[in-house]
């Protein structure tokens, strides 16, 4: 169990939230032009980061709003929380979304 600082409600227990995987995945601009390999890459292939992961969470049993989290998957420590649509914090710019 760890704490997540919801940008709308403040720090709450992880059990109130639901994780939804890698953040900043880009929806294809021209889906009709995508090859099968590109579709597979968009739909299925993931970084599965061991280290600092940029991911999406939803405060399911709270405000029910979505936001992004930077968390270290080696320790579960939440490093940063930022809103949907925002870029990762500048100190995490080196991490490939």
């Amino acid at each position, binding site marked *: 169990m760890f704490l997540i600082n919801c940008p709308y409600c403040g720090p709450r227990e992880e*059990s109130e939230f639901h994780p939804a995987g890698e953040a900043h995945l880009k929806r294809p601009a021209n889906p009709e032009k995508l090859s099968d390999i590109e579709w597979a890459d968009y739909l299925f292939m993931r*970084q599965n980061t061991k280290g600092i992961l940029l991911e999406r969470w939803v405060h399911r049993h709270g405000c029910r709003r979505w936001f992004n989290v930077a968390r270290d998957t080696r320790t579960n420590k939440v490093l940063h929380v930022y809103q949907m649509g925002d870029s990762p914090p500048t100190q995490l710019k080196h991490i490939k979304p």
Partner: protein
Amino acid sequence: MYLCGLLEPVPCGLSDTMLSKSMQKYSIYALLRNALNFHENWHRAWRSPAPKPEYDVIIVGGGGHGLATAYYLAKEHGITNIAVLEKGWIGGGNTGRNTTIIRSNYLWDESAAMYEKSLQLFEGLSQELNFNIMFSQRGVMNLAHSLSDMRELKRRVNAIRLNGIDSEILTTIQIKELLPIINTSPQSRYPILGASLQKRAGIARHDAVAWGYARGADSHGVDIIQNCEVTGMLRKGGCITGVETTKGIIQAPKIGIVAAGHTSVLAAMAGIRLPLNSYPLQAMVSEPIKPIHPCVVMSNAVHVYVSQSDKGEMVLGAGIDGYHSYTQRGSFHVVEGQLGALCELFPIFSRLRLVRQWGGIVDISPDASPILSKTPIKGFYINGGWGTGGFKATPGSGWSFAHTIARDEPHELNAPFTLDRFVSGALIDEHGAAAVAH
């Protein structure tokens, strides 16, 4: 470790190579003979060699699947110049962290064939390896708690039987006869309406499976190198040529990745992206009690699975923690949910105390089926994505992966489990199809 020279000088004088060539056969006679020497002359079960600069095949990952792969490469394909590299100790990852359930009651033909092959290999494994893996075919029961559960269960049992695998339906009364401690009251929140039973399914000693394969592989000349972490992959053009490790560079034209939760990390070293995500899966055991629970029970709806080990502990497991992690631990609310389910099914266990709880990192693919496959890099093979249900597949996984590496083409058993299926769309969707979220 040995009492060198005091009583019997023999074991200390043996070099590593000599040990491998003179593997002691375990038998009642060997036991009696060694009893006369106060059990101080047992050989080590496998050597602990320093890595050679070059091998024909390197297996990265010394869990059950990796050791089985090395064993079958040596035994079935005559390739013995093999290193198994393990970053910790063999069998210390998911092999030693699972709930030891073995079954083959899968819905889809591809999965049924793979898991049934494994079950058949398990049936002869203690004899074959001359190592008691304590395989106990005590039966696995999958409970149904609603009418739709029952319909789904019947469909599965019929599909499984059509694949020639034993499976049958039990009524609530039959369940109660087999397992008197289970709560079959119609008043309960999730009443038990029936179950499927695979009698040939059961449990085995997970450590012994790793140790047995390690000893078997070692006796064929395979080098098992522990405390050796792979830190990089060496490529030349489109071919793999070796690995960088904490014990130096080791070269090989063929490398098989069998690293469960760390499959993506190792594949990324070779520049390959995989459709895998790693999650913690928790399990736990209770204090030991007298025999009370004669089979394995799994419930998808209330979500817990439980069996009683030969030591008497109740071995418990359930679902994953939902977030990506490599921490080998999980959150308490997942434990709480699973124990709630346990007490719902078995009120008698409410006063049982837990003694150990742990997590393992499982790599889950989008269709919850494994990847046993060649890759775009020549000589680079992946065996992963077993998710939460890999232990039961240990022999079949190693057997078919050995074929894939030796022949550079998949066996018909693992041909459907390629990496290409995520491009072609020929997925093997076992998320809901396995008898429990596995």
